């Protein structure tokens, strides 16, 4: 592997997964979103979405707040500042990698 391509392996593996990347992209665009919105937008099952959110929360990229809207339970997900910084770093890293790829 050349030196230039070697740092492809340094990619953030928490974000470098399609479903989690989609979740983080949605959350990066907004202040916060509830579980139902993420469920609909990602097309994941409840279990899958919960699992990916837990992984993101474990990495410190997402906060999950369980609250109520009236009597209806609500789960609000937000990207942390670490999560936003990680997303920007991941995006910039991938841009560099793609630019250096052979045609």
């Amino acid at each position, binding site marked *: 592997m050349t030196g230039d391509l070697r740092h492809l392996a340094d990619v953030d593996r928490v974000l470098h997964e*399609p*479903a989690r*990347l*989609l979740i983080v*992209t*949605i959350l*990066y*665009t*907004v*202040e*916060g*979103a*509830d*579980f*139902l*919105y*993420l*469920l*609909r*937008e*990602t*097309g*994941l*099952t*409840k*279990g*899958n*979405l*919960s699992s990916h959110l837990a992984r993101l929360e474990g990495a410190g990229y997402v906060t999950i707040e*369980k609250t109520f*809207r009236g009597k*209806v*339970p*609500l*789960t*609000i997900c937000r990207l942390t500042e670490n999560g936003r910084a990680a997303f920007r770093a991941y995006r910039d890293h991938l841009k560099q990698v793609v630019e250096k790829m052979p045609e």
Partner: protein
Amino acid sequence: MGPVSGDVDEARKRAYRYWYEDGLSEVAVGCLFILIALALGVQAILPAGSAAAFLSELAFPVVVIGGMWAARRLVNAAKERITYPRTGYVRYRRSGPRRRWLSALIGGGMGAIAAFLFAQGPASLAWLPLLQGLIVGAVLLYTGSRLDLLRFYASAALSVLMGAAITLGGAAHLIGSAAYFGGLGVMLAAMGAFTLRSYLRQTQPTSETGEG
């Protein structure tokens, strides 16, 4: 892992578009425009120079600002009852300083142009509906291009056509402006209502929104 809907870029656009998915904000803006049309219509029929005409002119900004405040509250309340239980809740980031400056610039620009026209005399005021059509059309076009929503392009075109038609029709400035805002308001409200109807048919409220 099950299918992941849409690509990443589309997900970003969809998040912005989501606010307009239920048509409620268009219904609200349409109703606000109709309210403005009524206020302008009242000014038009009151005898010029009368105390009532003076009061209606003073009340106009209150009607506009109060209407905007009420529309915002009503849209939020309607989304709480209709939209969020069906397709989820999104909290948007506050617009940055650049967008706030841009909004202030547009508002200030509109005010300056209107003041200029007033200063030129009654004949210049006949151009007001066309000017209104162009400015509102530009805002709708910008929104449409940012969100990739076809109906905003259609609204923008109709806004310009309506403003031009009213100006060419030679209506006096208050009547012309009332006709413009009334016509566009009805169109936007109808478009929003149609979008809301489609949204309600395609979605169902969920009994819970908690984690699975």
